């Protein structure tokens, strides 16, 4: 059997739309019980009875992260706290923290969503699944834990960091699947090699789920080759439960977003108008399956586009293209908008380069400049001219991609800080007044 829930996963789009409308109405009713949406609906003179089609959704205002912060901790709750069974909170590193509440039913639905994703990429109950996400408030931990348990896989809550311990588990337990951040996957492969362990022969790994930070197709291929696995891109965010919102199928061509769980819109982040399929914009999501804390037209800040056309896997839920970064990750340099992922895509094409790089933006003599330090791989040459032409070649390709010329510096292997959590790839040292 190929599907976790065949009826839903292959439901024709028109039926799916009907299903969504029914769920949308229920969601709006329940949302209006929260102090926040009660106020929003009344301030904007919105009567839920007037929402009679999916297009009508556009009459409703967006919900933003700032709304979540302003209503911290409990003003978004649509049911009494007594009926809530779990709370997740974002760290608040970039501002005040936010809270997401769940009922027991919400958690069960979420676990089902994650199990559906894992099943889609071929993970089964006979698999041994090691989760290298941080547990606690970070949803990648408990989210995958409950999903994997629902699927029936033997789940190892290894949690984040401590590479040697991770390797010991992989070896001793015969781990077959991992959930791992892409930058940590390459790091783990390096540690394996350093410990004299052949990742291709001495592990039983076959499938890994990578997500939580944007990565390029080149990086995925590199991870697959290093570890001898199939790697699938997963997407989620704590505001939308966590992992499982969208996930790649075996085609590895776009992430199916589960439209029985959310309504998808892609908007231009400046004009706030919808963009056509294929055009990159900000992902906006409305929950359809959450009672404790429904969100209506939530602006995720994540940039992606809809891939049009049917997927050969038979699933009808639409696909999102690889994420281009976040609208807040965007670097504006000399009037050019760029994303770190563009730089990574160029760097990863060079086999002479390693996996670690650092982008620094700084003001030099009143001019903003971009510096890129990138580590060399093992393939070191004694020939000076080869290094120089490598350097020139990379710079030229970066210029073609970015439309400005960064200052590239090749650095020795292992000289950049090692990343064990979400990789910090950009340092912006500019002084803004």
């Amino acid at each position, binding site marked *: 059997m190929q599907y976790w829930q065949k009826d839903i996963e292959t439901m024709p789009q028109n039926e799916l739309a009907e299903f969504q409308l029914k769920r949308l109405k229920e969601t709006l009713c329940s949302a209006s019980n929260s102090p926040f949406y009660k106020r929003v609906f009344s301030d904007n003179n919105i009567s839920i009875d007037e929402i009679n089609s999916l297009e009508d959704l556009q009459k409703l205002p967006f919900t933003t992260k700032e709304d979540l912060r302003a209503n911290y901790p409990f003003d978004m709750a649509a049911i009494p706290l007594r009926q809530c069974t779990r709370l997740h909170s974002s760290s608040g590193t970039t501002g005040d923290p936010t809270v997401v509440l769940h009922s027991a039913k919400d958690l069960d639905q979420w676990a089902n969503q994650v199990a559906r994703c894992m099943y889609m990429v071929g993970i089964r109950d006979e698999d041994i699944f090691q989760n290298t996400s941080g547990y606690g408030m970070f949803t990648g931990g408990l989210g995958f834990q409950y999903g994997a348990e629902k699927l029936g896989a033997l789940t190892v809550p290894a949690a984040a960091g401590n590479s040697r311990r991770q390797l010991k588990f992989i070896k001793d337990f015969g781990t077959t699947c991992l959930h791992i951040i892409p930058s940590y996957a390459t790091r783990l492969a390096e540690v394996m090699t*350093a410990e004299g362990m052949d990742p291709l022969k001495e592990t039983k790994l076959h499938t890994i789920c990578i997500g939580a930070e944007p990565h390029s197709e080149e990086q995925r291929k590199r991870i697959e080759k290093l570890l001898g696995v199939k790697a699938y891109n997963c997407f989620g965010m704590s505001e939308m439960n966590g992992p499982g919102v969208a996930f790649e199928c075996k085609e590895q061509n776009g992430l199916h977003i589960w439209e029985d769980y959310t309504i998808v819109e892609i908007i231009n982040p400046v004009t706030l108008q919808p963009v056509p399929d294929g055009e990159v914009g900000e992902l906006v999501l409305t929950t359809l399956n959450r009672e404790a804390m429904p969100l209506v037209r939530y602006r995720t800040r994540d940039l992606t586009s809809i891939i049009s056309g049917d997927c050969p896997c038979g699933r009808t839920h639409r696909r999102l293209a690889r994420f281009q970064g976040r609208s807040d990750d965007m670097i504006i340099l000399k009037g050019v908008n760029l994303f770190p992922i563009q730089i990574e895509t160029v760097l990863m094409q060079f086999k002479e380069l390693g996996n670690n790089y650092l982008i620094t933006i700084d003001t030099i003599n009143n001019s903003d400049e971009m510096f890129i330090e990138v580590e*060399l791989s*093992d393939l*070191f*040459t*004694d*020939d*000076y001219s080869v*290094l*120089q032409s490598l350097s020139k070649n990379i710079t030229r390709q970066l210029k073609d991609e970015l439309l400005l010329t960064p200052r590239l*510096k*090749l*650095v*020795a*292997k*292992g*000289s950049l800080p090692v990343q064990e959590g979400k990789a910090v790839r950009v340092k912006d040292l500019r002084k803004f007044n």
Partner: protein
Amino acid sequence: MTVNQISIFLENKYGKLSEIMALITDQNIRIIAATIADTSDYGILRIIVSEPQKAYKILKDNNVSANLTEVFALTINSETDSLSRAMESFTTVGLSIEYMYCFSLKEKSIIILRTNDQDLTRDVIEKKGLQYIIESDLIKL
């Protein structure tokens, strides 16, 4: 006919050179000759050591970007024109020198040489009867 030279990628950073040299000398391997070619960002350190394979392994184990390159080590006596005569014999067959550095050892000069054609260089050295040292000699130096 050749010896293994170790080439090391070196960042222009305070203390890098001594750090890398210490890795080798701590294991009682002698550095016989060294040269650096540099730009403002990085350099290539080239060294001849008493035990190249052992030193190379130490560097790799310490995650240093390095490689082994076969170079010629010619022994030249101290007559005025011996170096120029040796060079001339390479030039006449069309060989180019990629890089070269020398060091002196007990009245003799040793020239480390990398050319654009290893095989042709070998022929010239043989035909002209130029003196050279081989890798197993290094540990005795």
